């Protein structure tokens, strides 16, 4: 009897595998709870929107896309568990993830083990693409690329010019990486460096750091951290009358949310973003940006989430294009196809260059970056 049941189950499951009209699964690991739940949820929503848009236009290879979303709880251990579940349980041919360098780096060894490619939508540490993992394809800029782009196109836009810069960064891979790269860039531009301060990811009172920064005599303060802490930095900088102009880096500052929560304290601050939903006509592909923004609003998601949500959107578009080019939903074929994609994303063109040790290169796309300013409670071009 038991043999019969086992036979029946295995027959059923094998039947489901050959069914061509079954949806193609794309796995995703995001922090939906925990410290960075807000940003992770925005990215997940962006992916949901993309899946809807793709499915509405007929899906890919004649099949629909199914997003399998797992919560990594802002915790590297949980991130590994979500990867295990997606790779060995759901057997997805490609995954997206995992918000942030720490969570992404935790998952990466599993990709080598299961030989499944991952599109990295948010992570800034150089380690992600230089550790010799040929299954990693990153569409977000590492801090070095962000700093370089800032130096090439945005540095001269500030008046009065930046003469002495201070850094206030969250004490993890992301913050320290950003502080190193922006310090390097500033030095190369002949800018002096004043105070370099760090803050624990869950610290709420930053008065000590700000008191030090206030005394440094700098004119510009670069801040790298998540939106909640950035809100606190802006509020407390205003309380302590920190004179520096504040520039946030990292691209997840969601200026609309800052305006709502920091109020007047947000006025005058500058923010580096990788997607500027206020000016879709300035995007590299305005029609893609507009489609995304419309679909997002139709779902009733908060407009503040667009600056993070686009990462999920572009991530799905990239994975779908690779599946289409590969002609089949198999991990190795998708990996090979990823090297040749040229996706029109909300951020701009997504195509991968080789990064990391020869023979085991990871893919790195070079995204666009923008800077916006908050003025009188509105987001404007500086």
């Amino acid at each position, binding site marked *: 009897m038991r043999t019969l049941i086992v036979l029946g189950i295995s027959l059923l499951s094998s039947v489901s595998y050959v069914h061509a009209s079954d949806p193609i699964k794309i796995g995703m690991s995001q922090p939906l*709870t*925990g410290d960075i739940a807000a940003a992770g949820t925005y990215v997940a929503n962006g992916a949901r929107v993309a899946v809807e848009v793709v499915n509405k236009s007929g899906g890919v290879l004649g099949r629909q896309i199914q997003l399998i979303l797992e919560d990594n709880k802002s915790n590297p251990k949980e991130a590994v568990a979500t990867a295990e579940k997606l790779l060995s349980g759901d057997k997805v041919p490609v995954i997206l993830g995992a918000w942030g360098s720490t969570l992404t780096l935790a998952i990466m060894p599993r990709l080598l083990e299961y030989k499944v490619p991952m599109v990295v939508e948010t992570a800034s540490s150089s380690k992600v693409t230089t550790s010799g993992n040929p299954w990693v394809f990153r569409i977000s800029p590492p801090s070095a690329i962000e700093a370089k782009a800032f130096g090439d196109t945005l540095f001269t836009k500030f008046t009065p010019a930046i003469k002495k810069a201070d850094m206030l960064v969250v004490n993890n891979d992301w913050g320290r990486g950003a502080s190193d790269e922006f310090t390097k860039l500033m030095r190369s531009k002949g800018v002096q460096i004043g105070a370099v301060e760090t803050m624990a990811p*869950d610290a709420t009172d930053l008065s000590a750091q700000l008191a030090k920064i*206030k*005394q440094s005599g700098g004119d510009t303060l670069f801040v790298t951290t998540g939106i909640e802490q950035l809100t606190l930095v802006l509020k407390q900088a*205003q309380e*302590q009358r920190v004179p520096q102009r504040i520039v946030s880096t990292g691209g997840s500052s969601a200026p609309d949310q800052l305006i709502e*929560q920091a109020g007047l304290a947000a006025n005058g601050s500058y923010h580096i973003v990788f997607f500027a939903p206020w000016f879709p006509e300035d995007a590299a592909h305005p029609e893609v940006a507009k489609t995304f923004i419309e679909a997002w609003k139709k779902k009733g998601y908060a407009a503040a989430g667009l600056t993070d949500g686009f990462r999920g959107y572009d991530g799905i578009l990239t994975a779908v294009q690779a599946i289409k080019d590969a002609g089949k939903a198999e991990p190795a074929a998708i990996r090979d196809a990823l090297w040749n994609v040229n996706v029109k994303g909300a951020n701009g063109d997504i195509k991968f260059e080789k990064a990391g040790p020869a023979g085991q290169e990871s893919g790195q796309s070079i995204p666009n970056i923008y800077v916006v300013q908050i003025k009188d409670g509105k987001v404007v071009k500086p």
Partner: protein
Amino acid sequence: MEQLLQHLLNAVVLGGTYALLGIGLTLIFGVMRVANFTHGELYTFGAYMAYALIGPLELNFFVGLAIAVMLGILLGIVIEFMLLRPLQKSDMDTTMLVTIGAWIALQNMELFGWGGVAKSVPHPFPTDPFVIGSVSVAPLRVFVVCVAMVLLVSFYLMINRTTFGIAMRATFQDPEVSSLMGVKINRMFTLTFAIGSGLAASAGALLAPVFVVVPMMGDLVTLKAFAVVILGGLGNIVGATIGGFVLGLAEELGAGYIDSGYRDAMGFILIIAVLLLRPQGLFAPRERTG
């Protein structure tokens, strides 16, 4: 020098709220012998209630704060009645595990109910700071410190000058003997937990407009409240008050002059030092035995 003054001022502001958190926790420990891990959640609860009442419900700021604290007291009574009373005869490990469970459950309920996006509480104070020389402080923070001081002083008067306070201190020293003297122990436990919870909720409600409100905000607070309690000596109310200010000072000066990345570690380094050198706490008199 100017920087030092700013650090000292910040330390006083910070220390006042640490003291509020610390005395609530130490009171519960002293009277009930419960290591209460829901303390930080009461803080979070107070903050969310302040947000709900002052934000979406548009109540007057001060009325909203007062109601938030009362709701915190109510939640404290519910927790005591439902979780701790049935376990009155259990040892400390059991009640500790129960409060840890309640902590996790409450936090997930907050995440479920409010979502992960931070909430901001509007307040009527001008955002321009008071500036004296090169030292500045926001009017809102001055308000927070004043209320904290009023709460601390009224708490002392209650403990030292009222019959209720005497009964509470008696229970503190010896529950059995005080019950023989006519103190209703059960009611005393409920009231103690309610007052401790109210103090935590008031710290949360007061700090909500200063910071932002998120479901995880209580985690670090629970740990810091324990740090304050250990600094002052377990169950020592005066010690916890001074401990609060010592912790604020250690964090400010540690971050200002050693390394800001380790700001939150300073308090815990201090605990390790205290436990090694003076395990009864900085301010505890010799342990009364028997």
